[in-house]
């Protein structure tokens, strides 16, 4: 292991990469905070992210590299899949865990199928140019922080800015109050004349839109390609982030950064030729997810009506 490689530049590299790797998790987690606060568990996040990654890529590819079209595609796909999940959980009132697994399996299969139908089997996968880094004037000149925080691409900034916005919406607007209320006591909300199902549909659509964007970040914001199952568990990790965050957007940022850091650490240990086999390093983010989940789960206070379909006039 060459410890001489650990220079300030190297450390900055790890921290910069942490934020990049945290971005898709943060986007998906912010959305899932809304979904879960409204009382729905959307375990289909993984499948929605995969669909977002695919449609984001297709949108950009078909328009000759217009990434904004890609983002729009991913956003809409996320909403469509969220509506499907919403139909299952809110209207049909089925078991949300199994419905989420169904969405994940469907999203994984459909993204692979559509990709293969579009491109066939190629020795070289099609690529697109990703969102470039946009250094923010002045701020990017700050030593250390400028590199880490202010020399990223537009999606990273968007995720970082959305975090306080999500917090404000959730805690400082009537809409946010209504979302939290339908998750805590839907009966009370119903007697107040607020449409419980409507609120839940809105919340899950926000969740789907952001999960779609999170997936698109992978394909058109960071790698420039799509591959089968490229999310590699990100959807489930994002749900762990939400539990970690105790359903608070600001703490979601912290949680996403923990996992981003785990991923970045794993990557950089590989480049340092650490005397640990790469396969074991690749386990690191998944092991950390379990450890973090175990650490926070015992005292986690789920929304009172979590994963309970609402039926009028029932306890």
């Amino acid at each position, binding site marked *: 292991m060459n410890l001489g490689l650990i220079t300030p530049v190297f450390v900055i590299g790890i921290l910069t990469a942490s934020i990049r790797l945290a971005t898709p998790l943060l986007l998906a987690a912010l959305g899932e905070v809304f979904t879960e606060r409204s009382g729905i568990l959307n375990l289909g996040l993984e499948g929605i992210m995969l669909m977002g990654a695919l449609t984001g890529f297709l949108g950009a590819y078909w328009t000759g590299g217009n990434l904004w079209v890609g983002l729009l595609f991913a956003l809409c796909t996320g909403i469509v899949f969220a509506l499907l999940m919403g139909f299952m959980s809110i209207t049909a009132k089925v078991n949300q865990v199994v419905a989420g697994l169904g969405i994940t399996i469907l999203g*994984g299969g459909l993204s692979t199928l559509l990709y293969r139908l579009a491109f066939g089997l190629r020795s070289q996968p099609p690529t697109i140019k990703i969102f470039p880094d946009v250094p923010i004037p002045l701020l990017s000149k700050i030593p250390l922080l400028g590199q880490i925080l202010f020399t990223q691409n537009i999606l990273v900034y968007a995720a970082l800015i959305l975090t306080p916005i999500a917090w404000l919406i959730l805690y400082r607007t009537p809409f946010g109050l209504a979302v939290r209320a339908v998750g805590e006591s839907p009966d009370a909300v119903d007697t107040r004349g607020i449409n419980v199902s409507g609120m839940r549909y809105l919340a899950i659509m926000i969740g789907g839109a952001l999960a779609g964007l999170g997936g698109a970040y992978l394909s058109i914001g960071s790698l420039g390609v799509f591959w089968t199952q490229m999310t590699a*568990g990100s959807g489930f990790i994002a749900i762990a982030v939400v539990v970690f965050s105790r359903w608070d957007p600001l703490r979601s940022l912290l949680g996403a950064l923990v996992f981003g850091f785990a991923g970045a650490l794993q990557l950089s240990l590989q480049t340092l030729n650490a005397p640990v086999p790469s396969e074991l390093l690749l*386990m690191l983010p998944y092991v950390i997810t379990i450890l973090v989940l175990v650490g926070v789960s015992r005292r986690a206070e789920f929304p009172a009506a979590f994963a309970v379909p609402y039926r009028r006039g029932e306890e």
Partner: protein
Amino acid sequence: MALETTHDNKTNLKRAWDQLFPALISIVIAVIIGGLLLVANGRDPLAAYLSLWQGAFGSFGRFTETLVKTTPFLILAISVSLSFRCQLWNIGAEGQLMVGAILSTWVALTFVSLPVYLLLPLTFVGGFLGGAIWSGIAGALKAYLNANEVITTSMLNYIAFYLTAYLVNGPMKDPQGFNFPQSPLIESALQLPILVHGTRLNAGFLVALLLVPAAIIFWRSSAGFRTEVVGASRRVAKYAGLNVVSTIVFVSILTGGLAGIAGWGEIFGIQDRLIQNIATGWGSLAIVIALLGELHPLGMVVAAFLFASMVVGGDAMQRNAGVPFALVDVIQGIVILLILARSYFFARRAA
């Protein structure tokens, strides 16, 4: 479910049909949607499905291949149904299978001097233990620390995958394997007997079939009853004086052990050595099969055979008709959602 016995034949038949009908409809709708997806992309769905059918049933050899795949699918589905009926949403069958495969291979390669009649049962125990440990981790974390088992079992799948990759590229790598990521071959005396000469159909299939009556007996035993009560309501179970925590751990261990046996069957019946991608996608297949079979052992036999034919046929379809195998994954996802939503649609129709 479906444990009542004292009814006249007519109602029994009607009940069986009532259970079968939604499942059939789900499959048909999923296949049609899959076909429409192909049409939308300018492919010929009839040619694709014909190729799939021939791949699964086109010859006696293909048919035995379908039975070969039915083996692990049925075992995994029985494994999954055990935890699902306890309302434990274990999605880690794939990882549990891999760890079972690892441990049973390790036993076979390590205690090679033991006589076969001792060593083969020992590898079976190894397979069970491997899966049981892997699932037991998630079960214990759930029971004692309330860690969501969907996330832990999903993470454990990835960890098991990289563990397998590490082992077949490192400590368990075959030194004479031309640098392929695989372990040495197990002793040929340990290979499960072939049932039909010239095919890969082996005694593992019988193990899978034997698990069906075993599962039926389990659900009629007091342990099975406890499992279902804990599944029906943790609170009621507690009031009834059942130990919820130990039941969850027990179910997890049994569930994982069964998945480990599926891994054992793959190694000793098919692969003869540990390889990297032993069970890709089987975890989700197990869930679909379990749900389509209504979590009932007999239902799962039919569902496992059905999806085994789709997987074997899907491979052939990809090779011969150039239609991606992922079509089968799409059908899986749609089937789950339709099976779940059936009560909604059927209730509305009746109303």
